[in-house]
């Protein structure tokens, strides 16, 4: 199991808790939401299966800036919700195998013609992280994850706007903005997808925006207009928050 980690005392306790019916969980002093959150691994304990150690530092640092903690609302950040775990798990799986990959490739086609890269997403990440880090080294003498928050945000903005010229660094096909776009959409997916995929830990992103998850039955509610729905989310695995 990819999401397993070495057994800690907490994990051991949690394992026995999760085997019990929900009512018993609450009797033990946990709410279902607390149990669901605890069932997800601690990000600091997680060993990436796809990313190398250097790449993982980039992903952690980038996710933290794309969806930061704090702010005026109650919405958590990407690291609090295990978004990097989601990205790592997706890259490790069959992600991208659906893409039609026969050549020839025309990477200079208009953007309206859609995805024309000769790479699957896994390669986009490997190339993108290497070049982004190399740009940071050239400009700041540090890897991306070592930059200040302001410099990280600036580097991400340069990636998004093609201010970092991958072509000048020897990459003929991939634009910085294409790498950024993959990274950003995967980060958002990890934040907002069901926790079954490793992110959205404790369904905290759903709680913050008011999405009830997989409840999927609103016969009475469809007729009640302009009244906030009162219940918290449930997940595909049956956890409630």
């Amino acid at each position, binding site marked *: 199991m990819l999401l397993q980690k070495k057994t800690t005392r907490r994990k051991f306790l949690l394992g026995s808790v999760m085997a019990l019916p929900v009512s018993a969980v609450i009797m033990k002093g946990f709410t279902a939401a607390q149990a669901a959150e605890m069932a997800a691994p601690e990000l600091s304990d997680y060993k990436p299966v796809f990313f190398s150690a250097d790449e993982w530092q980039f992903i952690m640092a980038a996710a933290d*800036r*794309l*969806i*930061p903690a*704090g*702010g005026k*609302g*109650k*919405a958590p950040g990407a690291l609090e919700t295990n978004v990097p775990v989601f990205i790592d798990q997706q890259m490790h799986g069959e992600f991208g*195998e*659906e*893409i*039609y*990959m*026969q050549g*020839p490739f*025309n990477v200079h*086609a*208009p*953007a*309206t*013609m*859609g*995805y*024309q*890269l000769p790479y699957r997403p896994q390669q986009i990440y490997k190339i993108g992280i290497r070049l982004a880090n190399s740009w940071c080294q050239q400009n700041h003498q540090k890897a991306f994850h070592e930059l200040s928050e302001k410099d990280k*945000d600036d580097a991400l903005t340069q990636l998004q706007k093609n201010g970092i010229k991958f072509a000048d660094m020897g990459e003929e096909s991939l634009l910085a903005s294409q790498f950024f776009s993959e990274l*950003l959409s995967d*980060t*958002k*997916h990890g934040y*907002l*997808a*069901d926790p079954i*995929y490793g992110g959205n830990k404790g369904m905290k*992103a*759903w709680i*913050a*925006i*008011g*999405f*009830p*998850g*997989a*409840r*999927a*039955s*609103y*016969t009475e*509610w*469809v*007729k*009640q*207009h*302009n*009244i*906030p*729905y009162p219940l918290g989310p449930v997940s*595909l695995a*049956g956890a409630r928050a």
Partner: protein
Amino acid sequence: MAQVTKEEVDVVVVGLGWAGSLMSIELAMAGLKVRALERGGDRGYEEFAYPKPADEYAYAVRNKVMATPAEAAVTVRYNMSETALPTRKWGAFAPGTGVGGSGLHWTAVLIRPTPTDLKLKTYADQAYKPGILQEDMRIMDFPFTWDEIEPYYTKFEHICGQSGKTGNLRGKIMEGGDPFEGPRSEPFPLPALEDTLNSSMFADVAKKMGYHPFPNPSACVSRAWTNPYGNQIAPCNYCGYCSKYPCLNYSKASPQTAVMDALKRMENFSYEVHANVLKVVLHDDKKTAKGVIYMDAQGNECFQPAKIVVLSSFQFCNVRLMLLSGIGKPYNPITEEGVVGRNYAFLSNGGSTLFFKDKNFNPFATAGATGQMINDISPGNYDGPGLGFIGGAKIHSSQATGTPISTALPKGTPSWGTGWKEGMEDWYGHSMKISITTTCQSYRDIYLDLDPNYKDEYGMPLLRMTFDWKQNELKLQQYLKGIVGNITKELNPDSYSESFLPMDAHFDLTKYVSTHNVGGAVMGDNPKTSALNKYLQSWDVHNVFVPGGNAFPQNFQANPTDTIGAITLMAAQAIKDHYLKNPGPLVQV
């Protein structure tokens, strides 16, 4: 030669979506031995039990029940002088695969075109002075009368359990329905779905402005329904997972719920999945087919002999199979000779997203077809000739999904960082849309053929689309922008954003529009301009029938499924009543 030859059947059906399942059951009920071949896997409803489909990431992002581009890509170019490129990822459209096909994940808006939509060429010739419409436009009439096709709409709507409000019952206009709809022989089988907040707001304002709103006709059934095949469809519970999702509540009519349950019980019907049909094999005189060649799940090349071949795969797959098999002459856009590939059309959408701080839309409490629409801007119902273009749109406020990844954010919201996160928290559940779904005309140089460069996993050429927006469609978009803008202002949101095609727009493959691709093997009265007669029978190879969206000579503003169902049922009836007794061309010219 094929390695494995199967036992001959009366009918081989290629593709088990709506068209294939309807043909299968109708012909099996007539006593024929029917065998269906489906490229994708089996999709029984057991795999869609609650809560499995309640998964936005799997179904809406990763397209879990669509064909993958790796197995079903087409190539696209804007004009005849360009090199087409493959759809490496889906964007503007995403066809289904497997048992149920695109009928498994559809939004279930089940609406008829108007009588004028079906006789668009006749209307254009009567209403437009010569020179107003583009010279390269190639619109045609559907080759049947309203009275001929109406019973088959009714039949298909009973198979689905259509829910909605009747607008025209045998010529009498009914309050609250669509006054522009063609006369119905029977009222809607079931009452309309409930209105969500956005639907009510839209309907109130539209009515006040003099339009004629009516509930979206729906195949997400509003009440328990037992259809003519004896299948039971349960009432919709507004679960919020509809468009792109299989139904977790057995409420959205699909080939599975409406047809396959009964069909699978018939002893003279069988089907094979992961059976990828590569070619229809013709007799030497090219006037009849003798069967199909397919690759089975084990990689064997199989020959399935059959007396009748039904091509009922997705629109562009049907056209491609005809081209690969030599059924009908390929279309040449220079000489305009040939029929297979001509009159391809897609459609456009667009609209306005309205943000209201103080309104809770509860967007997750919805069915795919939830909404209200107006049909006032459809051909013949407004001054198209005075405006210099033909076509129209259904204008609607629907709420097909309310899942978080698809959340709309106001203009100016940052795409990442604290601002994005706060935007999500502030605006999720506080927006509604006013949308357009437009017509799309057919043109001389908008067509389908085989791509010279890109191939599928079997080394066969991909289908190539030559498609871009024409001035007629862009003028229509600009006109609709004004109308939607006026409705938007009347609704008075805190802010709004708009999306309409500018006059210099090119077809954008990156943004999902719909999977209403039509044409390419169209039905008509004239074998020089149509590949199929009105019974969807190939003019050239009389035991090949090709039901599907491929038969539409242009695209109307109504969603295509109702018409695909109706023309398929009409063709099945003609096969039963006439073709079996006297195999040969059903229409003489």
